[in-house]
Structure formats: structure tokens, C-alpha cells
């Protein structure tokens, strides 16, 4: 069992000046599953490949179980990786694919057979052991890739978008399987994905990465409830969070949206952009699902542009009557609003997310 730690880890490709990983520090606890989540090109796969030893670490230190691995070859790190395209050896049978690493490790034949048989049983691959990867379906290949990882009893599992080549239904099913398997084996895992639903279901903690920087490292619900930055807030949740320009006022006890709507805050906001002061421009984040329809007393008057009726809920796209900025609301049930209709929404004071407009960081009470 192992713990993985990053200390100001950075990566610059040779011959290039831009840093793709800009000093990430974090600690993955023993047995934890941490999801690296971010948009494509944010550096999450690069970070994972650095853990695997497939990319050199340009600065900082990376340790697995207290041992610094910066200069260790992949084979000396005691890790296993599941690739996006599975990377199964096409000329070998399923059995040989899983046994490959064990044979290299010179493990006795009988034990290899036993370990592969056990893994095959867990993953329901026993009938396919003699087949070649080309004769398997996508989901089966994915399981073989998992099997190849688990037979080796590694200290750390690395998953590089392992489900993105599967169809939607299988993906939902497999992510539950992966979660169960990981919990059962209790192996420290790093899991790269750009799919927030996958991240929310699988993760013990999520590291949200943007442009080579770890924006937030926290359990899924905290990432959702208290996003550390405007980027995280906008990346997690569907439909995406609404961002409105606003101003802190009344000693940090209220925000005033452009256009004059005033919303009270549960507790005064201190610090933030106007150190010492409590007045200044901020960004107000409102989740579409925290808006409530209240045609009598709602603070936010909205002109409807379009309504998406999804059955269980309705997503209303509209514009604020006061300042014309767009607003999306997700309301439960069927809301038969038509383009041009006027609706009023309220929002609970504690459901407002405030961000520093320049740095994007969260402002808190």
C-alpha cells in the first residue's frame, strides 16, 4: 500500500519554454482514489504519465510511499496503468496479456496461472482467456486492461481516461465496476478524466486542473458546493454555473448586480480583492439548480429565450431584465415557459458563490 505525493512538480517539454505543469503539490493518501479532472490540454494526462515514469519530471519531487521516484524507470516504480486505448498486446492471448508482466518478474508458472485465473474470475473474463484482443468487444478489452493491472499487485493504479472509448451505457456500468474493484482492492489510484460525472462518482477526492495548475483538491461534494475558483465552479455542474458581474456593498453584507438588484449575504465577506475595504467589483456565481421560481417576490426578473424540457426537470434559458446578461435555471418538474415569457426567480443567500473578478479565487465569509 502506498501514498503518492507531489512537491511543486513541474514539467517543461525540452525545446519549449511553456510550462505544461506549473508546480502542483498534493498528496494522495493510501488507498485513496484521486481523480484528475480538467478540460483537454490542461496537463492532467501529462501529470499521470509523470507518475508512471513515461514523462520526465522537470522540477519538484514526486514520491511513492516516501521514496522519491523522479529518476526511476517505470518498471521500478511498482505501478500499473490502464490506457485509454487499452494498449493490449494484439498478438498475445488474454492470458498472455495478463501474464506478461508476471513472466518478466520471473514469478513461478503455477503462481502466474493462479493469479491470472483469480483476476479473470473477478473481471468475468475466464471464458475469454484463450482469445486474442481482436476477438473481444470494447468492454471486454477494457476489462483485460484492468486485469493486466491488477494481477501485478501494484502499489498504485493509474487510469488514463479508461472509459472514454466505450459507449455511454457501458461507461456508466464500468465506472461503478471500477469503483467497487478499487474499494475492494484498496489500492491507491490516480484516475484521469474530463468527464465530471465520472469524477463525481469515482473520486474520494478530485483534483481540478486548469492550464497546468491544480485549482482545487477536495472531495467531490465540496468541489461542487464550495468551488475554490470561478474555473472550478464553471467546470463542475450541468448546466454550467451562471456568472454575473456584481459589486460588494453594505460592508460586505450584500452584493449588487449590475442593473441594481441587491442580494443579501448570510455573513459579511471579509478580505478578498479590496483588502481592508468591503466595496468593489466581484463575480457572482449562481448554480442553475439553486434558482427557485417565485413569480410573486422573486428578485431576478428574467425574459425567457428558450426552455428545454428534459422530463424530470426543465432548463430555462433567459436574460436578466435589468442588465441583459444571460441566466440559465434548472427547475424541477415541467415548467411550460415560452420564449418571451417573464419569470421571476429567487435565490437563497447561502447559494451565492462570490469570486474575485481578477484572480478568479473564491471570496468567503
Amino acid at each position, binding site marked *: 500500500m502506498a501514498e503518492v505525493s507531489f512537491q511543486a512538480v513541474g514539467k517543461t517539454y525540452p525545446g519549449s519554454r511553456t510550462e505544461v505543469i506549473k508546480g502542483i503539490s498534493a498528496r494522495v493518501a493510501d488507498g485513496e482514489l484521486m481523480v484528475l479532472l480538467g478540460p483537454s490540454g490542461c496537463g492532467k494526462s501529462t501529470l499521470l504519465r509523470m507518475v508512471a515514469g*513515461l514523462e520526465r519530471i522537470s522540477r519538484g519531487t514526486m514520491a511513492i510511499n516516501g521514496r522519491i521516484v523522479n529518476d526511476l524507470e517505470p518498471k521500478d516504480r511498482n*505501478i500499473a*496503468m490502464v490506457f485509454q486505448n487499452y*494498449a493490449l498486446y494484439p*498478438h498475445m492471448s488474454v492470458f498472455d496479456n495478463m501474464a506478461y508482466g508476471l513472466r518478466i518478474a520471473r514469478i513461478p508458472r503455477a503462481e502466474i496461472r493462479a493469479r491470472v485465473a483469480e483476476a479473470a474470475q473477478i473481471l468475468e473474463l475466464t471464458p475469454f482467456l484463450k482469445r*486474442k484482443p*481482436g476477438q473481444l468487444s470494447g468492454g471486454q478489452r477494457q476489462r483485460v486492461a484492468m486485469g493486466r493491472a491488477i494481477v501485478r499487485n501494484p502499489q498504485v493504479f493509474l487510469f488514463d481516461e479508461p472509459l472514454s472509448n466505450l459507449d455511454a451505457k457501458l461507461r456508466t456500468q464500468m465506472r461503478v465496476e471500477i469503483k467497487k474493484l478499487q474499494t475492494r482492492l484498496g489500492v491507491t489510484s490516480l484516475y484521469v478524466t474530463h468527464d465530471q460525472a465520472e469524477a463525481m462518482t469515482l473520486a474520494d477526492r478530485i483534483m481540478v486542473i486548469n492550464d497546468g495548475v491544480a485549482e482545487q483538491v477536495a472531495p467531490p461534494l465540496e468541489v461542487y458546493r464550495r468551488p475554490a475558483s470561478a474555473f472550478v465552479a464553471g467546470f463542475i455542474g450541468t448546466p454550467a454555473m451562471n456568472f454575473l458581474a456584481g459589486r460588494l456593498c453594505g460592508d460586505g453584507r450584500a452584493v449588487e448586480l449590475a442593473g441594481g438588484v441587491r442580494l443579501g449575504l448570510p455573513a459579511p465577506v471579509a478580505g478578498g480583492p479590496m483588502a481592508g475595504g468591503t466595496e468593489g467589483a466581484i463575480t457572482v456565481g449562481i448554480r442553475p439548480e439553486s434558482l427557485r421560481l417565485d413569480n410573486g417576490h422573486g428578485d431576478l426578473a428574467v425574459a425567457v429565450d428558450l426552455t428545454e424540457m428534459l422530463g424530470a426537470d426543465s432548463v430555462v434559458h433567459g436574460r436578466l431584465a435589468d442588465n441583459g446578461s444571460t441566466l440559465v435555471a434548472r427547475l424541477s418538474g415541467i415548467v411550460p415557459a415560452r420564449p418571451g415569457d417573464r419569470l421571476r426567480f429567487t435565490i437563497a443567500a447561502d447559494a451565492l458563490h462570490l469570486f474575485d473578478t481578477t484572480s478568479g479565487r473564491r471570496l468567503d465569509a
Partner: protein
Amino acid sequence: MQKRVLFHNPWLPYVLLAPQIAVTLVFFIWPASQAILQSVLLEDPFGLSSQFVGLENFQRLFADPHYLNSLRVTAVFSIAVALLALTTALVLAVMADRALRFAVGYRTLLVWPYAVAPAVAGVLWLFLFNPTIGILAYLLRGVGISWNHYLDGGQAMLLVVIAAAWKQISYNFLFFLAGLAAIPRTLIEAAAIDGAGPVRRFWTIVFPLLSPTTFFLVVINVVYAFFDTFGTIHAVTQGGPARATEILVYKVYRDGFIGLDLGGSAAQSVVLMAIVIGLTVAQFRFIERRIQY
């Protein structure tokens, strides 16, 4: 799935095929049938008349120690050429595949020899190894090896093998390089994580995945060594010394055009034809089926 194309005009497919068939008829079927015909005839010394002798030409052929020697020489020559050309090309391709800088430059340079005509390539190597003025012969003398391929049959064979293989390396190199590029990087990475070092990765992952390319090239190279090396042999050794480098095609030429034994030469051509057909069948039937994965 319906794979057949449907033509509305019943003649159209035949018209479309006609050019191909015409070319095959004129340049292959007709000369080949002439050779078969000739192989059962015996020509008089002045080429005025010929008589039917059945399989006598073939009987004489397989009783002729020179012919049997030529078969042996051809086997040694083609295996040596294929082996040398393939291994060298593979080594170069693996290295070029690893190179990050100037990779395009290497590739272009390595392809050049293919543009050199076989006879020219032969002459090039002939100069290098010329016992009197050749730079390589001079260097070999320096390390105590007396090089004279005009006298030593083994050395002559070595020389034509090198000259013939050298020309084929570029071709093999291109195919190997393409084959290597087609192997997904993640497979190599997966093997590295599984604990395999570079040598082991090569033999257990890369080489097996290259096997379709390798088998294709083996057939191509053997066919090349059998037929396309005539120019090289003709320029370098003329089959000598003492028939030490007289491969089958060279013997066909010598017996037919110099010895004017048209019947015997035609019989040899027929044997060669059978060999090529055999190789092609082997490639399509045996190899292409086994290399599936």
C-alpha cells in the same frame, strides 16, 4: 454484405479489365508459353530447325553438376542477401525511429541507394574492393586479409552479396520504418510499465508486431535476389570465379545467349518460373494466413 459491384452493361467489366489482360498476355503469358515450348525443343547449331525432345532438356539439366552447383549458389546467395538486407535495414529503421532530431534527414539519406541502378551499385562496390586500387581491399590488406575476389570464390560471393544487399536495404528500411510507426506508442509504454527493458520490448512486442512486414519483405527480398541481381552479378563477377557466383538467372543468360543452348536455357527459365510461382503461393496461402492477429 454485398461486395460485388453490379454493372448494367454486361460488357463493361471486360472492357475495364482489357488493358490489364492485354499487358499480361503480351509481357507474361506469351513469353512464358514460348519458354515452355522452347524447353521441350532441341535447336540445331545454326538455329535453322528444331526437334521435339520431350523432357530431355530437364533431365540433362538435373544431371548437370554445373546446374546443381548453380542451385546451391543461388540458395546461399539469396538467403545471405535477404538476411543481410533485412537485418541491416531493421537495425537502421529501429535507430531512425528513435531519432528525434534530423529524423527526416536520416530517412532521406537512407533511401538514396534505392535510386542507384543495380549495375552501377555493382561497379561502385567493385571499385571499393578492387584488389589493386580498391580502398577497402587496401584496408583489408592492412589488417592482414588478402582480398582478391577474382581468385577467391568465397570472397567473390561475399562481394556480390554485399553489393546486392546494399541496394535492397533502403527498400526494406522504408517498410520497416512504416511498420514501426504503425505500432502504437502506448503498447511500448505498457510493456515498459510491465517491467520489460528495451531489448525485451523489442523481441516480445515490436518484432512480433512487425512480422507481417518482415514476411512480406522476406519474399520480396528472395525474389529480388533470384532475379533482379543479374545486373550486379554481371557487372561484378560475371558469375565467376569458376562459377562461384553463377546464380540461376545468370546461368540462364550464359547458356542461352553465350552458349546458345536455347532449349536448356528455356528449361532453366521454366524451373525459375516454378520457383517464383511457388514463392508467391507460399506468401498468399501460408504466410498471410498465419500472421493474422
